[in-house]
């Protein structure tokens, strides 16, 4: 199983440890992982701002980097969703193949690798932030708005971690307000949404907030740090590879 690792641009630059944890996690569960060195960005920052027509160059570059893999896996629901919905290129058959072969990390682990045990220990109270694009776009968990039986792929994995205490939140899948460029263009609402999400986790006494998208976690981390909170954020890959 040849996996192409897609590390979103801001993780590559600002969250090296998350990318390393993702690589290790995939290797731990037996994947042969390759990191294509010329990858950059999925194009979502432009597209969500209304400039999808400027993403052609990113698309071509993405296809050049990720053509030919059995699977493409990324530690980001949001970037994965963007590729799944919007990747088009001059080599459209390859673009189409990539769209159908790209997976967000946790769904890859539960649905493709079918992980049933992990050697990880994380003896803390953890709140799971359900990032919207993974949640409502990729259906990583049952959505609170829809009337259907509950499930959660990220929670299924977290429950395999020794000592981890996963808390129930008051609003289990409300948006944190990051929203890409929304976080600066609508700063007032974005920050308020982030503060309210953080407060929900704090009310439930978490030590860590985790999630499948570093973008949301970066936003929540910024708010926690401004408040001098001792609570930290960790991407789910860091927890699933944690040994204490």
């Amino acid at each position, binding site marked *: 199983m040849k996996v192409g690792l897609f590390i979103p641009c801001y993780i590559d630059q600002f969250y090296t440890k998350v990318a390393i944890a993702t690589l290790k996690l995939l290797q731990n569960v037996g994947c042969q992982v390759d990191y294509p060195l010329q990858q950059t960005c999925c194009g979502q920052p432009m597209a969500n701002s209304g400039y999808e027509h400027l993403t052609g160059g990113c698309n071509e570059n993405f296809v050049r980097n990720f053509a030919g893999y059995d699977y493409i896996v990324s530690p980001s629901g949001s970037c994965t969703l963007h590729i799944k919905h919007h990747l088009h290129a001059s080599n459209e058959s390859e673009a189409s193949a990539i769209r159908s072969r790209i997976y967000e990390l946790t769904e890859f682990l539960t649905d493709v690798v079918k992980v049933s045990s992990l050697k990880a220990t994380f003896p803390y109270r953890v709140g799971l932030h359900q990032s919207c694009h993974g949640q409502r776009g990729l259906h990583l968990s049952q959505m609170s708005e829809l009337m259907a039986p509950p499930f959660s792929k990220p929670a299924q994995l977290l429950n395999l971690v020794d000592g981890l205490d996963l808390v129930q939140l008051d609003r289990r899948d409300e948006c944190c307000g990051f929203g890409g460029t929304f976080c600066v263009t609508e700063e007032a*609402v974005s920050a308020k949404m982030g503060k309210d999400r953080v407060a929900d986790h704090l009310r439930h006494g978490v030590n860590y907030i985790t999630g499948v998208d570093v973008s949301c976690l970066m936003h929540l981390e910024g708010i926690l740090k401004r408040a001098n909170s001792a609570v930290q954020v960790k991407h789910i890959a860091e927890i699933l590879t944690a040994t204490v």
Partner: protein
Amino acid sequence: MNQLNLDHASAAVEFNKDEPRVDWHDETLWFVRTKRDRAAAQLPEWEQLREAASQIKNHVLSNMHDLLAQFEENAKRNGITVHWAENADEHNAIIHKLIQDAGVTRMVKSKSMLTEECHLNDYLTRHGIDVIDSDLGERIVQMRKEPPSHIVLPAIHLKKSDVGETFHEHLGTEKGATDPQYLTEAARQHLRDTFLTRKVALTGVNFAIAETGGFVVCTNEGNADMGAHLADVHIAAMGFEKIIPRAEHLGVFLRLLARSATGQPITTFSSHFHRPRPGQQMHIVIVDNGRSRQLGRPDFRNSLKCIRCAACLNTCPVYRRSGGHSYHSAIAGPIGSILAPNLDMKLNADLPFASTLCGSCSNVCPVKIDIHDQLYKWRQVLMKEGYGPGSKTAAMKAMATVLESPGLYRMAGKIGRGVLRFTPVLAENRFNPWYNQREMPEPPAESFRDWYINNKKA
């Protein structure tokens, strides 16, 4: 605070200056959302009902002409006069003429978002007609000379104390009164007099049924009935998308509407009007006002499926924290943000950006409008048509140039990390909106790519 002349983001800044009030607004509407969840969960067939409603509405959109013609024929046979209005002006003029023909200068009106969209009250007031809104929430905002901030709960931006002040000023209630019972009773007495003396009553239309030529109006206060039953002339105004094919389809829509809106199994009053009573006139004004244009946009036509339940407003984390007036449009929230650009792209170019694209709106929608996908698509249309600021377009072009080139991307990343590590003041200042309420991430010395090359290929 007047948010109406500001773009959404600026209006949201104003709204967020009073954080306890934002919390209260958020929690009040979240409570409505949870009531909706509980009501929906009680029906095992909830998702099938949504699917059925969606399919019926799709059928309506594809057969609009025939259904409207059928409705007109049957309504006329029932003795209802049918009027067609191409736009807001025609709608207002038709209603004005009907009032004049009745020889009166006063009218009572129950809730109609269409009349808000057409600015009917302003128009009639300018022409010397006195209009009283009979829905309690509408009456409150009317006294305050504000537009409604929510489709179903027009005064949800106001607290009891605000209403107390307004009633003290306009109805002479005791100063400082906040008891809902007392205030409602004052409004009730005031409105009762209005109902008894008005000869012309206007109502909205929730559903118009093609096969019967009748229509249904849903209220919780019975104010539409009170107005219509006591008036000599009943005018009902509807956007043409309110049509449904058959009466039996009400069994789908009435079950969805109130559950989605407030978590009630059904509205207190679901009134079926088919024909004028002897001696009464009944008129229906069917309005286009841009709806044909929207119907012709493949990406956006199904926004016309909307039954105005406001579930998307209640669930929207942005709406709850920016308030209805921040949308500067008759219909606020996510649904308003995909309807308004059709009416005026320039004026409403900000609204599709007043969202994180979280998708909760599409999930609660009882007729399955793909609201958040349409928000994304409107962004594309608006920027392509040149309604974005030039500075934004330039920034996006520069960003695209960097991100599509592996070399430029790595150089920019290195510089960016360097700045944050060694001269953080360049990012940590008041000109950076991120930094206003959040710390910057702590950049590592090496990118993942650097680490990968050093550790894996060595």
